[in-house]
């Protein structure tokens, strides 16, 4: 795939639509997303009795307990591939910190006041880092408390600590993903980007202007500065 505007589809002003996510990335993202939803629901069922009924969705308590760790493993493996692909584009830059300091402008839709954003904004980058850390935490603590295969190899103190860490990481991740999902609903065009793969030039210009500059430079007939 290339970041350059793709031929074929055209945006409103005759500029071609811009590919934001390839079919591979979209598939990978939705495998992670699906696994996350299933892992979160089956995990919450074991966390608070008020939502134990969620275990019914998985075939009852024992099936919930059996399936949850495997779903979690699937999520970790799929996310590892996804994260490897976008890690380089998620490094925090000075302009990202400035963006975060103006978070009130962000949530008030005063985008014109914000520093220019590259392929990902600082909020998206934070979601990326939180997801990486939480999934590492969930994977390691999850192995320790996986009663069917691994728990017998760990001391009881370790199992107790892992139980708390597992719940904590899951809590942070669930809240973060709710923000992530909401942001996609809030910023129109984002869901299309992850389902169809493309966004309009105006969308990129508005939300990711530094990336738009890169793209227009790349399509212009002159050598790339890098």
């Amino acid at each position, binding site marked *: 795939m290339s970041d350059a505007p793709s031929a074929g589809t055209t*945006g*409103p*002003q005759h*500029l071609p639509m811009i590919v934001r996510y390839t079919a591979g990335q979209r598939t990978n993202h939705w495998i992670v997303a699906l696994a996350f939803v299933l892992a979160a629901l089956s995990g*919450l*069922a*074991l*966390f*608070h*009795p008020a*939502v*134990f009924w969620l*275990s019914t969705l998985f075939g009852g*308590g*024992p099936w*919930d*307990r*059996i399936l949850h760790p495997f779903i979690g493993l699937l999520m970790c493996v799929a996310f590892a591939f996804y994260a490897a692909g976008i890690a380089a584009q998620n490094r925090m830059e000075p302009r990202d910190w400035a963006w975060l300091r103006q978070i009130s402008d962000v*949530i008030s*839709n005063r*985008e014109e006041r914000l520093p*220019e954003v590259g392929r990902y904004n600082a909020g998206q980058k934070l979601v990326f880092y939180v997801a990486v850390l939480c999934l590492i935490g969930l994977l390691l603590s999850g192995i320790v*408390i996986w*009663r*069917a295969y691994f*728990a017998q190899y760990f001391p*009881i*103190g370790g*199992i*107790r*600590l892992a*139980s*708390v860490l597992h*719940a904590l990481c899951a*809590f942070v991740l*669930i809240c973060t993903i*709710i*923000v992530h999902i*909401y942001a996609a*609903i*809030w*910023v*129109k*065009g984002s869901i299309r980007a992850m389902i169809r793969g493309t966004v*309009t*030039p*105006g*969308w*990129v*210009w*508005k*939300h990711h*202007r*530094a990336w*738009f*500059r890169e793209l*227009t*430079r790349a*399509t*212009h007939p002159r050598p790339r500065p890098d």
Partner: protein
Amino acid sequence: MALQSLDIVRRSATTTPEPDIRIPVGTREVAKLIDTTKCIGCKACQVACMEWNDLRDGIGTNIGQYQNPHDLSDSTWTLMRFAEVENTKGDLEWLIRKDGCMHCADPGCLKACPSPGAIVQYANGIVDFHEENCIGCGYCVTGCPFDIPRISKKDKKAYKCTLCSDRVAVGLEPACIKSCPTGALVFGTKDDMKLHAAERIEDLRSRGFEQAGLYDPPGVGGTHVMYVLHHADQPQLYSDLPKDPQISPMVRVWKGFAKPLALATVALTALAGFFHYVRVGPDETDDHDEAAAQAMADKPEKAP
């Protein structure tokens, strides 16, 4: 082992009141008293437990100890633990302790259990596992301060001593009590057992066991299985009987305030998103943005 003839006062993973309209006038809290100073290690109680509960553990290997099998399991709910201890005078003391569920007043297993009704506490103090509701997660193992519950490899359910709740419910004493040849095991109301223990302790002290005492640890609200120990100041001599057992602070946080707090925060996060949308509205891209993009694409060299 669901028993309607015993009243349930606490039920795992349940936030509403238990069915407790009946007031058991005659039934007070029961207790098993294990007098380690009278125990001869005959294992009759182990056999009685196997017989009554139809349990047959696999044949293990002899590692040169009287303790057999080596540990509690899904089909060994009580076990004589043999400790050879050299006392300060250089003499050997053979400290034998019948291990099994302590039936805590504040049970860590019940606190940790995520499955509604898999663990119950009866009005008489017995803590019972209802295996048909058990999902096999092993949280009871994590919660127990005494390392008692065992998850079966065969059916992935948790098992432990029931204090013969089925026998007690119909006015019988637990099977192990019935079998004890020395009177080291006695069963009755908790008050009576404390009185009996006090007599035993007085006798032991008069015969040189200055530190003799009752093991009814307050950290778990007291237990419905109690020990008379010759060395109550050093319970750990008896195959690591914990000195001050408590539900671990980790388990208290995890299955205590963290539960409602985390769930509420998750719900509030989602609500915050909804109200942001209602108040601020979506961030949309319009024709002006497309036109601006077109303009910039036409003059890409322009510095930012």
